[in-house]
């Protein structure tokens, strides 16, 4: 990264982060309040209203859900946000020469940073309210989140470029993401499914990081082979995404 590009990236990121709660009274406090209130709602609805249970002893359903939901959001939100990373910045792309990937990078980074902060807040809250978490599993959690982040940037490049050519992508991607949400063991546990279905679900490289984040936090054994396959898939997607962006670069301005 050339020095000028680094400061351009910083400016873009600063704005992405700053605009979230611009004009709101509580401002940055929302980063803290939002995850907490979400967690509160989840635990009320699932633990008290629906009386949902997990097969792990002493683990509330809300805590179970939270461990899968925030990592998933980290991935899904950044992909969903970056659909408009290029189309939404057409005013910049058409007028000044800046590397297009910076626009996507800034969107994804901002989204990841916010959800990461949210996840940290939620984990702390869970521990405060008595959920026992295995802190020695944190490096694995971090690795899984990194895999999600790499997936996110790869898919972000792809959807951002495709959306320049076909604006349908924006509408389609939210549907695809919600389908993927239900196909991933976020609201349910992989072990609850019949073995054949488990194998089928594990073909989705997004599944293993979710499963392993939970396992790491609960002190259960880590499924390294599948996690490594996911990591490889993530890197592959990122390379493909970047290659697509590079190939499309000379044409983007013509279609914006």
């Amino acid at each position, binding site marked *: 990264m050339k*020095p*000028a590009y680094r*400061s*351009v990236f*910083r*400016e*873009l990121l600063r*704005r992405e982060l700053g*605009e979230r709660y611009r004009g709101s009274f509580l401002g940055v406090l929302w980063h803290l309040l939002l995850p907490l209130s979400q967690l509160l709602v989840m635990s009320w609805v699932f633990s008290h209203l629906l009386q949902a249970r997990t097969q792990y002893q002493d683990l509330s359903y809300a805590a179970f859900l939270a461990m899968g939901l925030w990592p998933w959001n980290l991935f899904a939100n950044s992909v969903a946000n970056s659909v408009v990373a290029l189309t939404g*910045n057409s*005013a*910049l*792309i*058409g*007028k*000044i*020469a*800046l590397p297009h990937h910076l626009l996507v990078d800034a969107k994804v980074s901002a989204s990841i940073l916010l959800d990461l902060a949210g996840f940290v807040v939620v984990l702390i809250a869970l521990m405060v309210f008595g959920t026992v978490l295995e802190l020695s599993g944190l490096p694995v959690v971090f690795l899984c989140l990194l895999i999600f982040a790499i997936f996110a940037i790869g898919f972000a490049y792809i959807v951002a470029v*495709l959306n320049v*050519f*076909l604006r349908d992508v924006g509408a389609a991607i939210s549907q695809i993401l919600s389908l993927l949400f239900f196909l991933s063991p976020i609201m349910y546990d992989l072990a609850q499914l019949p073995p054949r279905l488990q194998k089928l679900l594990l073909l989705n490289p997004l599944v293993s990081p979710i499963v392993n984040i939970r396992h790491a936090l609960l002190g259960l054994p880590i499924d390294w082979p599948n996690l490594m396959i996911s990591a490889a898939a993530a890197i592959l997607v990122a390379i493909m995404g970047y290659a*697509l962006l590079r*190939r*499309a*670069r*000379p*044409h983007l*301005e*013509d*279609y914006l």
Partner: protein
Amino acid sequence: MTEALVEVSHLSKRYPVLANSSDRFSALCDMLRGRAPTRHTTVLSDISFKVMPGCSIGIIGENGAGKSTLLKLITGVLTPSEGQVKTRGAIGALLELGAGFHPEYSGRENIRLSAALYGITDTELKTKMAEIEEFADIGHYIDEPTKHYSSGMVVRLGFAIIAAVRPPLLITDEVLGVGDESFQKKCSRWIDDYVNSGGTLLLVSHSTYHVQKLCREAIWLHEGKVEMQGDVFTVTQHYLAWHEAKQSKQEKIAPVIHAEYEYGIESVVSNGSDSRDELTCQFGEDFRIEVCLTSRDDSPPVLLCGWARGDETPVYGVSSEMDRVPPEKLGPCRYRYTLVFPKLGLLPGKYFMKVHSLDSTGLRLYETRQRTIVVAGESRAYGLVLMPHHWE
């Protein structure tokens, strides 16, 4: 420092045709397969030129001639379809009205972003921010999103950033036409100063006046090709002549009603020369014009005579009817007026002398003749005319 700042060689640009949604889809497929889009229009073809440091080049041409596309290719916003653009050093660009501002960002945020792009560090920016605010002079709007700006304010801010950065090459596209009078003057003065102190300028403008004022060379683009390139006055004159020819061609389509004028102009003799070519006369010397008019019903016609500057700004016009001067009768249906401008007060430059024949009441205008008059001479005064004055 003899290396060119910009070197454009065999540059071509084609835009894809995107008339309907299936075009976008096939364009996507073409892009994925690494082919050029099948349906396209050519905007620029085979353009080559160099911009040396210290040059000031104006780019002129009709709407759609490819001027803006050329600038975008040079700044690197667009990628050429063929050929290449080599640039050295930072380029300050004010393309069209946006100036590279994000509509949702505030003025200040846009300044920060532009500064980052020009490689200005935070500490430098702190001192420059005040300078930019002062130059832009848009008050509290600096903290509003730029989408709330008037087009003039956008240009003010964009120009203020350029003025603070002072890049080795400045590219502007029709920018001067947007600001108000005082800001235009401020910009013109800044550009003048910038060019004189060794800055390099690429300017697109429809105003040949601006181009002549600010540039030493010009490139005339016509339908995506370089029609002419060279000294600014030669190129702009050919360009204007071409426009006139085009206009008169269009006018010919209309039926000629006044095949023979009720009140016609038979001859115009200026300073003894009766041709219609450009005439050079001397600043401060007498200018004499003799016009022979015809009148079909033998009633004495009125003569209207006027001066206009090269860009058609009227300077002075007077008619025989205003001055209550009768013509000299030369014979049946023929009259002559002789008008003298003693010690011609027009400052050196290019003007048009316009001669019109009117009916005897001075209300209806019939024939018009125009001749280019170049006033030669030396004067350090500003403006158009020498005003009689004295110092006390």
